[in-house]
């Protein structure tokens, strides 16, 4: 179970990549998990249908924050069409941990924000 907090996860939690805000994002979406109070805002810069930059801000547990950091790292350079296909299994593969149903919500919160942003779902 210590593997839930394996070194790479801890590294992303302690030193998150792309934390902050973009100057002029083309896509921005916020989501939260009321059960544990995790919050995330995801911003994307898109040129010719390709994500050229990404940033996230928010607060929450180590799993949700590491997941957001790893996801933003991964999606830069991908097209919106690719990201529409990109999903849960891809993100969990990035995280590389076995995760129970309760914490799964934490891990997948950044993905929820990404999907809503990419598909143009209105913010709540």
């Amino acid at each position, binding site marked *: 179970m210590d593997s839930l907090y394996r070194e790479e996860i801890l590294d992303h939690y302690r030193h998150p990549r792309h934390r902050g805000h973009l100057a002029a994002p083309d896509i921005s979406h916020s989501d939260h998990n009321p059960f544990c109070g995790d919050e995330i805002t995801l911003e994307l810069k898109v040129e010719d249908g390709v994500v050229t930059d990404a940033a996230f801000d928010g607060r929450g547990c180590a*799993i949700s924050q590491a997941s957001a950091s790893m996801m933003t790292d991964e999606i830069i350079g991908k097209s919106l069409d690719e990201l529409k296909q990109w999903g849960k299994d891809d993100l969990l593969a990035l995280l590389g941990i076995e995760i129970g149903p309760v914490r799964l919500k934490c891990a997948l919160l950044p993905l929820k924000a990404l999907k809503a942003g990419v598909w143009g779902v209105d913010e709540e």
Partner: protein
Amino acid sequence: MIAIETLRTEFPALQRQVNSRPLAYLDNAATSQKPLAVLQAMDDYYRLHNANVHRGVHTLSEEATALYEGARGRIARFIHAPSSKQVIFTRNATEAVNLVAYSWGLSTLRAGDEVLITEMEHHADIVPWQIITERTGATLRYVPLAPEGTLRLDLLDTLLTERTRLFAFTAMSNVLGTINPVAELVQRAHAVGALALVDGAQSVPHLPVDVQALDCDFLVFSGHKMCGPTGSGVLYGRRELLETMPPFMGGGDMIREVRLSGSRWNSLPWKFEAGTPAIAEVIGLGAAVDYLSALGMEWVRQREHELVRYAMQQLSQVEGLHILGPGPEQRGGAVAFTLGDVHPHDIAAILDAEGIAIRAGHHCAQPIHDFYGIPASARASFYFYNTLEEIDRLAVALTKVQTLLG
């Protein structure tokens, strides 16, 4: 002198390993573990006496009724109720509050009336009053918290007025551990002509409780936090009030006669127990009360006091750890805390890997967390069967969390 190690062998779940380590169960404010005596009583009912109560004339039904009503009598004595007619079985403390809110509240409260509760309440003693005051046009007021985790009793003079119909408050906070001066608060309510409802979900399992000495009008508690099964709860009420309150739910067992033109209600306590009750669970709660009585509630209180004092001492040495609520003298078995900026769910997950079970979240008391400006907290809560070694393991594991994520 009660030997803790011997006593622990009576709790099968405490023998478990979790993640290859002996379970340290420190989530007792959520629910307690169950001793063999309780499991045996429920098993015996199903194996030997299983029948519906109050109905049949056959042997098994008479046995089941005797066991069910016998449990009521023992539970009445446990809280020093003048009569077992004043002990009404519900599913849990939450249902007991709702019974009072829907029965007494809906039939009594009017616009201009006030219900006073506190910012320290569990959601179970907030939400029913929000619903009922909104429906009746009455006003809901709150006794504020003080930073040290006690109630602002200095404000009671302005909050309790001749408009107050009910003052509902917890005897012991499930987050802050704060033990409130129940008898004094009841007296203050009565002084302005208000009724007093005591949420005993955290106090009845952990302290001696005497409803006549407290002089409260209602007391609610849950069986599963006091060695009993889930699905068993109690509403104690003052006789004159219960006699005049309308039924909460209609159905079988709560009626004297049913005609197409209308029905007449059964007498107390059955007027408030519609349908087949949780027979096995009530019998289990009766066994739990016997178990606790044999230990002695004074001993339970003393034992937990030692555990909490030791826990607060050990935890305060963990770097970055901040305990919510008052010192050990005014506190029951719950110790909620934050650890720097580490999210409570991370704390609980890392502790679980060490075989240590604690709670993380808002513990059904969001207003307390709003007051402190935090989204959640971690909480270790103790019962008499916990040990100093378990508290040592907790402190060591929290230091590990601090190293890993702090």
